[in-house]
């Protein structure tokens, strides 16, 4: 598109605030982080600004022995793998719960719909940290769930769920469910239900109408929901910190450690880039596989 100079200037001026914000708060910190990941760590945190080093990336896969030889170390890969699995699990479960929920709401009358959407968004009124603490109280041994299960005679001994990956998964599903329901609801809400009628008319039963018409048309919402759950989940920090304990460390915790007790900022920065690369890869595969270009 060619624009005359006046309109081009005006467009640039109008875009300036957004461009500046993005440059200052997105691009600049990323560049800084990339730079830091290529430096050597200082003894008490921070980096040595003039000392280039690829150690941070080497450290991800290899352990440097006393004699300076490198041996493969899968500890960090395991953490990445666990994070990927937990986030993937949370995405699948929230999708399985969220899609029927969104469909149910979308099929209600206008007034009921608004009320149900309000109910979905009520948890946002309380800080997520507080709600995660509440889950600690619910899940701990002797907590509400444990004591009611033993009172009903459904469990022998203690529940032993808190500080396990299971607790993290429960926390994820709970926290991220609204992020799955809302985008799917949005795409279902604007759907033309006469198309479903047409599918019935052409001989599709309910299941086929769902699979061949409703699901494909809700796909943009489903893709958005999955990304909105997967991305925050894989990088999440305090849910695994509070519910997972030491045995279910995730990427977020690992990164936090590097900037905290481990005092290895370059490694923390390198891990962050690794996470970014993983997320971008997943997004790329996912959108290529499932999302048709809009308007096609």
């Amino acid at each position, binding site marked *: 598109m060619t624009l005359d100079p006046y309109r081009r200037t005006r467009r640039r001026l109008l875009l300036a605030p957004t461009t500046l914000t993005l440059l200052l708060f997105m691009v600049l910190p990323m560049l800084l982080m990339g730079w830091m990941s290529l430096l050597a760590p200082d003894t008490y945190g921070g980096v040595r600004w003039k000392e280039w080093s690829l150690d941070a990336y080497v450290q991800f896969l290899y352990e440097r022995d006393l004699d300076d030889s490198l041996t493969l170390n899968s500890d960090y890969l395991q953490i990445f793998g666990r994070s990927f699995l937990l986030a993937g699990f949370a995405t699948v479960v929230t999708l399985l719960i969220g899609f029927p929920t969104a469909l149910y709401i979308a099929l209600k009358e206008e007034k009921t719909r608004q009320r149900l959407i309000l109910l979905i968004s009520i948890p946002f009124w309380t800080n997520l940290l507080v709600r995660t603490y509440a889950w600690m109280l619910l899940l701990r041994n002797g907590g509400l769930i444990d004591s009611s299960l033993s009172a009903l005679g459904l469990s022998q001994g203690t529940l032993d769920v808190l500080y396990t990956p299971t607790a993290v998964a429960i926390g994820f599903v709970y926290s991220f469910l609204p992020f799955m329901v809302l985008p799917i609801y949005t795409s279902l809400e604007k759907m033309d239900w006469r198309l479903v009628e*047409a599918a019935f008319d052409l001989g*599709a039963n309910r299941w086929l109408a769902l699979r061949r018409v409703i699901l494909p048309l809700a796909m943009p919402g489903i893709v958005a929901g999955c990304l909105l759950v997967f991305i925050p989940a894989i990088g999440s920090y305090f849910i695994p910190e509070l519910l997972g304990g030491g045995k279910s460390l995730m990427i977020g915790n690992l990164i936090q450690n590097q900037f905290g007790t481990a005092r290895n900022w370059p490694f923390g920065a390198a891990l962050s880039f690794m996470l970014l690369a993983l997320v971008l890869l997943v997004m790329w595969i996912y959108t290529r596989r499932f999302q048709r270009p809009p308007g096609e």
Partner: protein
Amino acid sequence: MTGNRVAIEIDHVCKRFGAGEQAVLALDHIALDIRENEFFTLLGPSGCGKTTLLRMIAGFEDVSAGDIRLYGASLTGKLPFQRPVNTVFQSYALFPHLTVEENIAFGLEMRGFKPADIKPIVAEKLELVKLSGFARRRPHQLSGGQQQRVALARALAPSPRVLLLDESLSALDLKLRKEMQVELKRLQRETGITFVFVTHDQEEALTMSDRIAVMSAGKLQQVGSPEDIYDRPANRFVADFIGETSFLQGRVADGQLHFGVAGSLSCQVLDQPHDGAAALAVRPERLQLASSGDGLGGVVAEVVYRGVDTVYLVQLADGQPCRVRHTNDSGASRLARVGDAVRVAALPGAFHRLQEAGHDA
């Protein structure tokens, strides 16, 4: 052309919306038979219940009372996907995520056809609606008329016993609509499928139908061929709704018509020659203006030039208005101006006596 077998039997069907005191009777004991291979039209103003009736045949609305039978078998309790009928929707309702050929194949896939069998049928239907080059397009890349054709091909593909068309042409512009009217008629002839067409456009109904059912306010007014409906309307509503009509009040004595107007009209009422007061309907094209001689006296109140014809609104001497239409075929200028005194003459059989409450037939 049309067989005598009954395809759809609508047996005193009622539709109630709401319950108790607030219940509205949207369809009031509709009873009619739709014959095999017939182009049957449900015609009426919006809100008359014609679409509700169509949706009942398709299975999207419940029948409150009565029954609908397809070749003798009751459709009650059958879900839409269990009925061997297909619908062409008013909005077309094409699947936007599927290509033209996938849209057409949809109904066949749902009914369990094998991919190898589906291909030739899809190609044949594309040929039928003249869209062979468009198989891989998506609906939004097509014009309104083309989308309409895809919707038709999609509904015809599973070879339904009856095709239902819900105001299917009303979204098209006039020229395209005329083309599609001819097209629809051709498709109906070529496929030999029973078409049930819903429209509020009387001209469309007259052009395409073998038989028409005129509906108003949930009641059936008249069922008959286009000629029946136009020439012998059953009541004032039908006469008024179909084409242009003037209503006149007159008397029949000795088989001759009399009006309370100076001048005579030598015109017989053929259908109901019994004596007495008569409510009459007359089409403007069956009246003529005459400057002298036989005819009813009146004054021209208005002249409307419409290109192909001119309509004169004449105030008869007794105050009754009537419309007279002349085609502009000879290129002649206007026969009369506003304010001119004229005589209105009638062609033989122009007047149709209406059966109305108080005037027994």
